[in-house]
């Protein structure tokens, strides 16, 4: 079991490795040119610094974009300023001279002489690698720009030695003698500086020194890092340095150093062509970098590789790896240098074509591609034996001139993943509802899977559904797509997906609803039937609703699992709510005002009756005291009663209980007093009357 697993794992790894190896690198193209114009933008005709200006100008120069005139005036001005100033640092001079080498500004030879003398002094006394790099680099530039200035180094051997003394045993360099950390980036700078020393040397540098340097370079290549697709790159080993230098700038530095050194020394540096090709692949694999520095590093390194003395990489690229049988596409292969210029005469051979199904057997025999001069491409009609599918084509580049083989690196064979697509024929599609026990056909419907269908079927849990169809390639072979799904979708959005299996050309699935009731959560009702057939090489992949089936399934038992809750629709969830307004209590119904007034009138009738009765009885006030004092008390008594009654009216109208009680108390005392007086008077009068 374990060995089988391991075996499967190895196959998987192998499959991944093969597919990864099949990625295609494209040389620099027009998209790079348009990106360059976007990335390097000068503000007011000048760049932020001369370093940026150089990077922009150099990138434009390599890509063949003519933009010099736009920035010439302003940039030349700052170049002349920098060169003329006696306090400019070597780094500034270096970039000023680099810009000048492209723009060719008018600089006096005298200025060059002065700078050359200063730089010579710096080179002789420098201790840090950057000083060497900038001063020697500047001297080399002066040598190229002005033939009359003497820039030759008197003590070239000494300078060479002091730079070499910073190198480490593993081929990397230190930035200065008091800095113990060694860096790959520094190695590139050192190599460039040393190549400058060699070219500036007044007498020949010791041969043994150069050969040790060559072995150092080979050591540097031992520490190279690899991607799966064959690209190789250099990276800093020390994490602190890694923050400052990305793999791209480190690799670019090494490539510049290597190519510069190879240009000035005779005799080959024995770096294998594969490694150089790997470096080229690394730079091309980046695509189009998004920042100016990376862009410059990429383009400049590729330019260095384009014309180097070690090995010039040739890149095999395919404009299209998806070939359509219906369009009768031709296989087109281009072989270019990294910058897209044409390669020396060569032949491209298609050695093998591995079908993704069978890893070993080649489906075609070796064939040569025809070269078309006009498009500088190699063409081949897709061989007859190649059906639709996924292939790995193995190409080999053979150079016509054997001398070229020393100059160019082709990397042997190249594997490319090719998709051959075509229209797949769909035939004999039918859908059948069967009775489970006997297998007799209940309903049978033909399907046209190329067009629209809207079937209406019905079945119960004792029946089966059978869907079958045939798929054949244009060459009549059986075709097994990656995706053959039958989807049943209930009204409540519960979905069930089945993979349709095949035997040869025939695809068939039988859904026995009796066994599926539990999976279907006992949900009866209408199910939409959808069929998806798709594959990477199938041009007519489709996703089609076939129709619907009404399923009559038994009632769910109590223990049955519930269907999953459908997802809430986010749009409806967030809508505004319905308004609510409060329903107020209705006030109680009241009689009409007229009715109240009539009753009010009626209520005064008893009072009137009382008065009439009194008059009828012939009441009089003859008992009212006649003498002054009792009469006064009598009047006061009745005024008091009237006041109490008035107080009641006022209480009804406006007074509150406390005020009323207070007044009532006062009036009560008063009434008690006057009442007592008048009543006792009346009593004595009536007693006198009785006794008399």
């Amino acid at each position: 079991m374990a060995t089988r697993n391991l075996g499967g794992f190895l196959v998987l790894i192998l499959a991944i490795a093969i597919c990864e190896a099949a990625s295609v690198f494209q040389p620099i193209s027009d998209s790079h040119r348009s990106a360059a114009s976007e990335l390097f933008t000068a503000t007011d005709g000048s760049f932020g610094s001369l370093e940026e200006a150089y990077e922009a100008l150099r990138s434009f120069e390599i890509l063949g974009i003519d933009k010099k005139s736009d920035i010439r005036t302003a940039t030349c001005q700052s170049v002349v300023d920098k060169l003329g100033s006696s306090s400019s640092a070597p780094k500034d001079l270096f970039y000023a001279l680099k810009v000048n080498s492209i723009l060719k500004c008018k600089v006096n030879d005298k200025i060059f002489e002065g700078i050359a003398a200063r730089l010579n002094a710096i080179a002789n006394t420098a201790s840090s690698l950057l000083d060497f790099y900038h001063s020697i680099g500047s001297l080399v530039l002066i040598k190229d720009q002005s033939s009359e200035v003497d820039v030759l180094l008197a003590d070239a051997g000494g300078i060479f030695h002091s730079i070499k003394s910073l190198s480490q045993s593993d081929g990397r360099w230190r930035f200065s003698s008091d800095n113990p950390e060694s860096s790959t980036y520094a190695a590139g700078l050192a190599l460039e500086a040393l190549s400058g020393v060699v070219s500036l040397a007044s007498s020949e540098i010791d041969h043994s020194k150069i050969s040790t340097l060559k072995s150092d370079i080979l050591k540097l290549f031992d520490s190279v890092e690899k991607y799966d697709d064959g690209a190789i790159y250099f990276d800093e080993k020390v994490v602190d340095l890694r923050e400052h230098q990305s793999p791209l700038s480190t690799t670019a530095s090494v490539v510049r150093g290597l190519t510069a050194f190879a240009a000035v020394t005779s005799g080959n540096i024995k770096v294998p062509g594969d490694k150089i090709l790997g470096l080229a692949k690394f730079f091309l694999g980046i695509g189009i970098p998004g920042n100016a520095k990376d862009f410059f590093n990429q383009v400049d390194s590729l330019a260095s590789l384009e014309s180097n003395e070690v090995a010039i990489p040739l890149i095999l690229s395919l404009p299209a790896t998806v070939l359509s049988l219906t369009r009768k596409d031709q296989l087109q292969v281009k072989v270019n240098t990294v910058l897209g210029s044409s390669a020396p005469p060569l032949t491209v051979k298609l050695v093998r074509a591995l079908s993704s199904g069978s890893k070993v057997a080649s489906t075609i025999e070796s064939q040569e591609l025809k070269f078309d001069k006009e498009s500088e491409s190699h063409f081949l009609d897709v061989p007859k034996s190649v059906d639709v599918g996924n292939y790995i084509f193995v190409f080999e580049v053979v150079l016509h001139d054997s001398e070229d083989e020393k100059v160019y690196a082709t990397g042997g064979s190249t594997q490319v993943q090719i998709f051959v697509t075509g229209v797949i024929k769909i035939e004999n599609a039918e859908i059948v509802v069967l009775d489970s026990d006997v297998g007799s056909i209940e309903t049978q419907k033909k399907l046209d899977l190329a067009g629209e269908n809207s079937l209406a079927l019905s079945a119960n849990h004792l029946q089966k559904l059978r869907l079958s169809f045939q798929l054949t390639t244009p060459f009549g072979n059986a075709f097994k797509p990656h995706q053959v799904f039958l989807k049943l979708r209930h009204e409540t959005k519960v979905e069930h997906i089945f993979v349709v299996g095949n035997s040869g050309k025939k695809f068939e699935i039988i859904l026995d609803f009796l066994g599926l009731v539990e999976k279907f959560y006992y949900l009866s009702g209408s199910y939409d039937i959808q069929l998806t057939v798709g594959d990477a090489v199938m041009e007519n992949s489709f996703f089609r609703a076939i129709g619907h089936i009404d399923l009559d399934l038994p009632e769910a038992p109590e223990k049955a699992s519930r269907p999953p809750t459908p997802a809430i629709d986010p749009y409806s969830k967030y809508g505004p709510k319905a308004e609510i307004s409060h329903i107020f209590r209705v006030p109680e119904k009241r009689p009409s005002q007229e009715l109240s007034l009539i009753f009010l009138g009626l209520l005064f009738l008893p009072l009137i009756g009382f008065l009439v009765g009194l008059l009828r009885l012939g009441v009089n006030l003859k008992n009212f005291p006649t003498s002054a004092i009792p009469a006064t008390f009598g009047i006061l008594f009745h005024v008091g009663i009237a006041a109490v009654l008035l107080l009641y009216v006022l209480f009804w109208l406006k007074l509150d209980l406390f005020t009323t009680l207070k007044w009532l108390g006062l009036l009560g005392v008063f009434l008690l007093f006057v009442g007592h007086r008048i009543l006792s008077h009346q009593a004595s009068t009536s007693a006198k009357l009785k006794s008399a």
Partner: protein
Amino acid sequence: MLKLLSVLTFLTLTLPFLAHSFSPDHPTDRRILVLLDDLALKSSHSLFFKSLQSRGFELDFKLADDAKISLQRYGLYSYDALILFSPSVDRFGGSIDLAAILDFVDSGHDLIIAADTNASDLIRQIAVECGVDFDEDPAAVVIDHTSYAVSDTEGDHTVIASDDFIKSDVILGSKKIEAPVLFQGIGHTVNSENSLVLKVLSASPSAYSANPKSKLSNPPSLTGSAISLVSVVQARNNARVLISGSLSLFSDRLFRSKVQKAGSPKKHEKSANEQFLTELSKWVFHERGHLKAVNVRHHKVGEADEPAIYRINDDLEYSVEIYEWHGKSWEPYVADDVQVQFYMMSPYVLKTLSTDQKVMHVIPSRLSVFPVDFLLIPFLIFVLFFVLQGSYFTAFKVPDVYGVFQFKVEYQRLGYTSLSLSKQIPVRPFRHNEYERFIPAAYPYYGAAFSMMAGFFIFTAVHLYSK
């Protein structure tokens, strides 16, 4: 000593302002930590980063396994947002781990996660915590044989051209996205019970998630439009998270790529990735859809001051101003679906607020009191219109139920931060002297009492003095 003291005071005064999540008081000054697998991503995804930098974000690029990275310093967050472009990282360097990232989000900070094929368990776990499940098969990618991007070099239909966007102007901007978005990566599903996660970019019904290199014997776990390609989460604390199953979605390559969707004759010069992600990142970093409500006011009709208590059946006016953050300033937010509830256990009144128009009529009449040049008035109205746009207003009658009520504004809309305002206010019944008096229906009763009193007065006189 004095120096130390001054340094300490400086620190204690300034530290709280150096870094915190999006807050309405200090919405600017946003620092983003970007964790990368490989520093080369910095240049291969530069267009995305540039669009952030041009909007004023300060990006701090770090390798995900850098031992010196940390989100917090001295208990304060040094970043306002985190971008995880490190799908394969198994363990972050420094003090960052799953819990630290969750705490970061829990304290209201934003997060962007980009996974990819072979995404590490750590990244998957972070996604799970955000309510998103990536396909468990590590080799599975989203494949779509009917809506892939037509390409001469990519034949395996894993570069998907998707145009099934969420219909929300606030998340994706008001400008319609014309071209499809290119996606290459793994799919995920959102938990249907999680209402905080939204699918922003969904796969087409024919898509499925599987390993393109192996034959399928069982149905894949993710199929059809259930697959989400890009999802967003808005947590309850308004922290926003963007989860994408593709890192190359953000890459310059796909930003610049030409698109032709399979089966459609239309060729687009540029994919919509740039527009899609720029707009989406505006949303994630709270440049859009972040609301604040101020000046919540209510008062009786005809009065200006807020009462301490309402009586039943009072007529009241309620107003609130709502503003939306636009990256640089708060702009009035205009909508017609802001609702207020008058709430005690359940809403008694629920009314849609109208954008305040009434004030408009009042102002010119008030202005005319002052000696203002009449030509100025239209201008002033124009200015005031913009000032008052975000102002919402309504009037209603207090229900005839007394108790402790709340004015509640629960504003939850797709993509917007939720507004939840509540203001408590008691409602009392009528006082004894506030009831109606001298009701005509009671006149007979009054009349009876008074006729009785009149009779009594006459009777006393007659009884005492009649002979």
